[in-house]
């Protein structure tokens, strides 16, 4: 009875609002039924939905533009690119992304397990320091590797001055401008994505499962492979996605190392204002991303993991025993190549630069620009991520998963593509905002929202829907559940996401390069230009400042997450 009345009121309302002047009640009814079916009888509140939809629309601007632009590019251009460019670019991009992802997952998971679960000496120190490469942009890493291992780097000089090396091994064998150079450098600076997510998951893991396994007679290595690793599965997936998408969208490092992937090609096409070709390459890259996301979601759909918070018990720490020395050695080597080496090189050149007066008012202007952009972006991303994650997890439907997918597409839409779309939209339709600060912030949101979504999602997936249901059954409306139950429980994840977005924004390069208004350079842009001219004494202080500014949010993220 009550339900029926509610329906009629709704119908009347809809009628008076003039939603469908010619619509008969029956069509409305069937629409409403469809609507309910879409949400499996559980539609979200309008505010939540509108917020989510707006996010989705902003995220889809670049994609729509790229698709439209590439479809109107003409068959001739398509054929030329398909014949000449795309096969090579596909190979370059996919082989690099696969290799780096595998390497980063192996390093990230192993490091996380060692520093969280074992009694390695200096545990706290390692836990924190091994996440530090996240603050080092790969293009900065590339510059330091070029300085050290480059064709006229420090090790070459060492090599040429050591007769026994030249006589046994011949000419200087290291070439950083190669697949292996790019692979090594990107792995060293992207593994923290996996490491951090895996560490967080390991910390939250409930000991009950492992104890059950042990009581069934499994030994430590069996437990690791069969219990720990499968509980880490969502974390590995999330980390691997972040890494592979990062590699596919990285511009700075590959450009420095002169290795052409899709993103670099798109950037160069765009820099030559061949927008149509850039759009075609972008479309192919978007398809690649969709395939990767699809593979991940298919492999994840098979398994769902929930942990009940009520019986949570601390994990026990495993003694390393005879493995202490190898474990320490392994951790130290990673530390050496991903933290110590780049930071020392930067410190060396910053020292020279500061003595030559690199820290002038111009420099501080760049620093302020960087700070403004990154802060605003990370705040907005935290706000936008929430409805996306919540809709997807609690109101599964075509619409919410479409919004979710769109949110991810922004990440694989390498900044370059987001920038393409935004230039077009703003130049033609929103001239007042064209080439302003806001254009960059919006493009950054498109680009980095997925990071906030990922981290938030990892933490919502640990909150059982039963908790929501309990709150709902006690009379809380959905928005109140979100505000009072979900957000507080997710907060560490959300803030960690915000911190991650801040760190990513402050080091972002290609979008800023393409969208920056006249006179608005950021630290990242300066590093790129100065390093290109080999003016290392000016590049190093800017790079070091990016790293230092990233360390504070990173510290926070590690302490909470």
């Amino acid at each position, binding site marked *: 009875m009550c339900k029926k009345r509610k329906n009629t009121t709704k119908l009347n309302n809809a009628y008076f609002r003039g939603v469908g002047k010619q619509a008969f009640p029956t069509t409305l009814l069937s629409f409403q039924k469809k609507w309910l079916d879409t949400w499996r009888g559980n539609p979200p509140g309008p505010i939540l939905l509108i917020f989510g939809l707006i996010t989705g629309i902003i995220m889809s601007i670049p994609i729509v533009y790229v698709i439209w632009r590439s479809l109107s590019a003409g068959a001739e251009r398509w054929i030329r690119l398909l014949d000449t460019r795309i096969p090579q670019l596909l190979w370059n991009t996919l082989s690099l992304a696969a290799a780096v992802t595998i390497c980063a997952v192996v390093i990230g998971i192993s490091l996380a397990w060692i520093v969280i679960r074992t009694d390695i000496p200096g545990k706290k120190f390692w836990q924190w320091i091994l996440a530090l490469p996240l603050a080092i942009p790969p293009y900065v890493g590339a510059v330091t590797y070029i300085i050290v291992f480059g064709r*006229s780097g420090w090790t070459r000089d060492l090599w040429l001055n050591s007769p026994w090396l030249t006589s046994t091994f011949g000419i200087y064998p290291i070439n950083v401008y190669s697949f292996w150079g790019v692979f090594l450098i990107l792995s060293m600076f992207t593994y923290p994505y996996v490491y951090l997510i895996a560490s967080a998951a390991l910390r939250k893991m409930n000991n009950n499962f492992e104890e059950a396994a042990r009581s069934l007679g499994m030994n430590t290595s069996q437990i690791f492979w069969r219990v720990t690793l499968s509980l880490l599965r969502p974390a590995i997936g999330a980390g691997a996605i972040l890494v592979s998408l990062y590699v596919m969208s990285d511009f700075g490092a590959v450009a420095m190392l002169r290795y052409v992937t899709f993103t670099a090609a798109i950037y160069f096409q765009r820099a030559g204002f061949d927008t149509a*070709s850039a759009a075609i390459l972008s479309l192919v890259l978007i398809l690649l991303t969709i395939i990767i996301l699809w593979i991940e979601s298919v492999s994840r759909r098979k398994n769902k993991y929930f942990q009940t918070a009520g019986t949570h018990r601390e994990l026990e720490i495993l003694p390393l025993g005879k493995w202490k020395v190898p474990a320490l050695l392994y951790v130290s080597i990673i530390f050496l190549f991903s933290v110590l080496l780049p930071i020392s090189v930067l410190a060396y050149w910053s020292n020279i630069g500061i003595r030559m007066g690199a820290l002038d008012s111009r420099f501080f202007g760049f620093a302020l620009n960087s700070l403004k952009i990154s802060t605003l972006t990370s705040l907005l991303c935290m706000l936008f991520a929430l409805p996306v994650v919540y809709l997807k997890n609690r109101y599964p439907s075509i619409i919410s998963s479409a919004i979710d997918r769109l949110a991810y597409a922004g990440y694989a839409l390498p900044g370059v593509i987001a920038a393409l779309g935004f230039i077009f939209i703003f130049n033609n339709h929103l*001239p007042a905002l*064209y080439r302003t600060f806001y254009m960059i912030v919006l493009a950054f949101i498109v680009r980095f929202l997925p990071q906030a979504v990922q981290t938030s999602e990892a933490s919502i997936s640990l909150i059982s829907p039963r908790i929501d249901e309990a709150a709902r059954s006690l009379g809380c409306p959905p928005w109140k559940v979100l505000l009072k139950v979900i957000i507080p429980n997710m907060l560490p994840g959300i803030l960690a996401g915000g911190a991650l977005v801040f760190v990513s924004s402050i080091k972002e390069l290609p979008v800023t390069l393409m969208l920056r208004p*006249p006179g608005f350079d950021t630290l990242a842009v300066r590093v790129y230009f100065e390093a290109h001219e080999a003016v290392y004494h000016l590049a190093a202080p800017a790079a070091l400042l990016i790293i230092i500014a990233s360390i504070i949010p990173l510290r926070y993220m590690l302490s909470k997450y």
Partner: protein
Amino acid sequence: MIKVKKVIALILASAFLMSLLVTGCTTKGTAPSSPADQKSEPRELVVYSNRNEKFVQALLDKFSSDTGIKVVALHGANPLQIIEEANNVRADIFISNDLGSLGYLHLQGLLQESNPNGIETIPEFFRADDNAFFAISVRARGLIYNKDLITEEDMPKSVEDLFDPKWAEVENGYAITRGGNGGMLGHVSALRYQWGDEKTALWIAAIRSNSAGIYQGHGEIRRAVGAGEHTFGLVNNYYFHQQLLEPDNNNVGFIYLDQGDGQMGAVSNAAGVGLVKGGPNEAGAAAFLEWLLMPENQAAFVGESLELLINSQFSAAYPAETQPHIVDFNSLKIQDMPVKELGNYFEGTKELIQASGLDLDLK
């Protein structure tokens, strides 16, 4: 729970504050000045430049301190950005390293005629008929080489020599820039003028496969050659001048190509400025052009680039290391293509380079 609310409130409040703050900054800072401002003293000037920032920023700083006009610069801009922004003009002045792109912009009707005082100091050969753009400095293309790795006699002397795959065999090979580079574009245009498209396409294919390094810019090439990472590289002559100034790795020489009898002469190009049509700060732009044409500022345009001044009598100051190696432009045999003709070739050249694949290569 209270703590959580506080954090959320803090986030919301700071997002709000940030956007206010930023709005304040932008409206004060980069918003185009209103027409009312224009009538009085010019206050601001927006310059797009695709020349190396090191040379241009010093020039713009000098302009600001001489005239009090604030300059907002976008370095590393592509000339085609002017075309994209045709309906939403942001730039007043375009400073280009390649006269061809200025000529092309003019062909598209995006530059505006000007008649600044002092324009007569620029030979007609180096400016548009309506002075919408003009050149200040010139350069010739050639090969920078590392004297530790090769002698002058052994170096190729003609651009045609590069057809020969044997040059891939020199120690560490040789270096060229990406096809998207302005200098390379101008060079290819000149070759098309000289040889026609077919032979030029073969030449691009040859250097593309025979070179050992393909770089984004000439600055990287001169340093790489200086350090012995390559035996020689195809650059503009002033990069040779710059390398001589380096504290080390400066044992380099330079070959002006095709200087012999019956040869085409060195390919030249010029750097200059164009006046963008409908720019937001007309008065500032006019002031800039007149300021730039003053003899001392023509010399400042060259500045640290160590290019050759068209008006060599205004003598750009060259450092002692470079001075003995400066070859007067008039004493060189230069290809007879008029530099302002380059603009007519711009589009076709881009297509040819795209078809060759050199526009995307890096190695």
